């Protein structure tokens, strides 16, 4: 039963990641290679809050939103000027800059969360507990599973409402015909800031849930290889709608389980997952540019 809870929690976390990246790819029409760094930022914000004694989720949440919004400007401002390959290169630069900041913002002997030792470097931060929710401390796996499901479901419903609204229509219009939208007097720069902020906040929230579950975070979770996996997850499932991103998350979670049934050890399962994802990306690009269940086909 514990393993089922584990799968449910992981599905909720990576569904949030997939849905958040879907906003950038499927609604803003940009490919981003920096998503793992925002996931890591959220994880570290939660971890640092935990270490310094801010444990109630309702206090951590606004800090998470504020920090992710601040860092999302690193994506939204370049998106005003760049698209296509140049935007991808910039996101790679942002990814490496944030990863290096996380990895190296450490001074041995200083307390974690201080200005000299914000992230504890390559050692990472351990001993992170489940969150408190309005004063109630989560203690069991079942409670944390319910909490994760509630967070994911609430976020998904809000995301669906927002993307189905006029704002979502404007995003889709901006994705397809940005120049026309600007000609009609719509502030596309503000749209991009809002969309990137929403996407990065959701990724940061997923990171916070992840570290709340695992109890440990290190810079490894912010590496660019994870960004590639998240990108593959969204593209394989499909972008431009909710079902594609959910399908991508299901595929991301279940593929290792299927591989384990053929008696592969965990290390080989991880290797084969990346191999298969790589192969599937080529197949998707060649034959299924909308992914398996998406609405938006990647085009310039």
């Amino acid at each position: 039963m514990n393993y089922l809870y584990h799968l449910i929690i992981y599905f909720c976390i990576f569904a949030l990641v997939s849905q958040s990246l879907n906003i950038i790819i499927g609604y803003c029409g940009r490919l981003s290679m920096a998503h793992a760094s925002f996931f890591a930022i959220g994880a570290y914000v939660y971890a640092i809050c935990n270490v310094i004694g801010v444990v109630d989720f309702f206090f951590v949440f606004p800090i998470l939103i504020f920090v992710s919004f601040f860092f999302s400007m690193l994506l939204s401002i370049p998106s005003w000027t760049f698209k296509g390959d140049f935007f991808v290169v910039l996101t790679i630069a942002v990814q490496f800059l944030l990863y290096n900041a996380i990895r190296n913002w450490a001074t041995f002997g200083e307390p974690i969360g201080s200005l000299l030792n914000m992230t504890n470097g390559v050692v990472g931060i351990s001993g992170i507990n489940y969150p408190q929710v309005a004063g109630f401390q989560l203690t069991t796996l079942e409670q944390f599973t319910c909490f994760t499901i509630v967070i994911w479901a609430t976020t998904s419903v809000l995301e669906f409402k927002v993307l189905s609204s006029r704002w979502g229509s404007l995003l889709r219009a901006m994705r397809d015909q940005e120049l026309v939208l600007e000609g009609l007097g719509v502030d596309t720069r503000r749209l991009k800031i809002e969309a990137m902020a929403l996407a990065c906040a959701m990724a940061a929230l997923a990171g916070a849930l992840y570290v709340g579950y695992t109890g440990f975070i290190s810079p490894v979770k912010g590496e660019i290889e994870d960004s590639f996996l998240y990108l593959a997850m969204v593209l394989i499932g499909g972008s431009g709608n909710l079902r594609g991103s959910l399908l991508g998350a299901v595929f991301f979670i279940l593929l290792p389980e299927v591989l384990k049934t053929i008696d592969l050890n965990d290390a080989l399962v991880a290797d084969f997952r990346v191999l298969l994802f790589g192969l599937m990306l080529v197949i998707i690009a060649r034959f299924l540019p909308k992914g398996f269940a998406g609405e938006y086909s990647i085009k310039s």
Partner: protein
Amino acid sequence: MQVILNGAVNGFAISFLALAFALVYLPTGIFFVAVAGIFAICPYLLKTLLQIGLSLSFAILGTLLAGGAMSLLCEILCHEPLSRQRASKELHLIASLGIFMFLSQLAATVWGEKVQNLSISADTFVILDGLVVSVSQEVIIISYSIFMPFFLFFLYTSKIGLLMRGLPGSSVEAVALGFDLRRVRRVAFLISGFFCAVGSILLAYDRGFSPFQSLNVFILAVVATIIGGNTFRGLLLGAFLVAIIRAEAAWNFALVWQDIITYTLLVIVMFVRQKGRVRSGERIEENV
């Protein structure tokens, strides 16, 4: 001076991969991430060929041919069909990314993730005018001195070289004038794979190799291309600039500042001058 020498030699090595990337990117517009996968796999091929008993020269030749063949296969099986479908550059990038993930993970699965070496003994060195030059650095300098002049001669004197230089932004005109773009693309991919294999072997000999370090080197090659202004001559200068800046950063500050300074420089160059620092001829309508 030692720092500058070390940086320059790194620049020589990065130039090969930058050239491999630019040979595909500049004429075709394809963001050829797969070259990082070929870069990852080539040292393993070389080591395997040596282990099965081939002589060094045949093993190197075999690896170079394999690098070219892998790159050509990427074009024939993936990018050419996508171009026929008039796929966007993003789709080409995604396909190329998939090939990179597959190749680098294949190397990790088959040969393991540990850092390996091509030489079995410690590197020797000579001292020239107070500068320490290792044997691996000498090999890099000699290889650069042989390959680059030949390539530049080919680029500026041959018909295909002319087409490669002229294609960026003029592919429709080239087709209208009756040039065989398919042949040019295939030659570009083939030479790209060849240069990728050369750079990969040189860097592997100098500092060892593992499946996942190829991406870092690839990003440096992209940075060099962009800083160099998206031209062939410019990227050679860009590679030097990047390598020397990184060497100076490591010497004067700390190793951690290498990447931070490199990517900050990239962001600045992209915002200030999208075409990099080496001016290339621009058509008026490109600025509209």
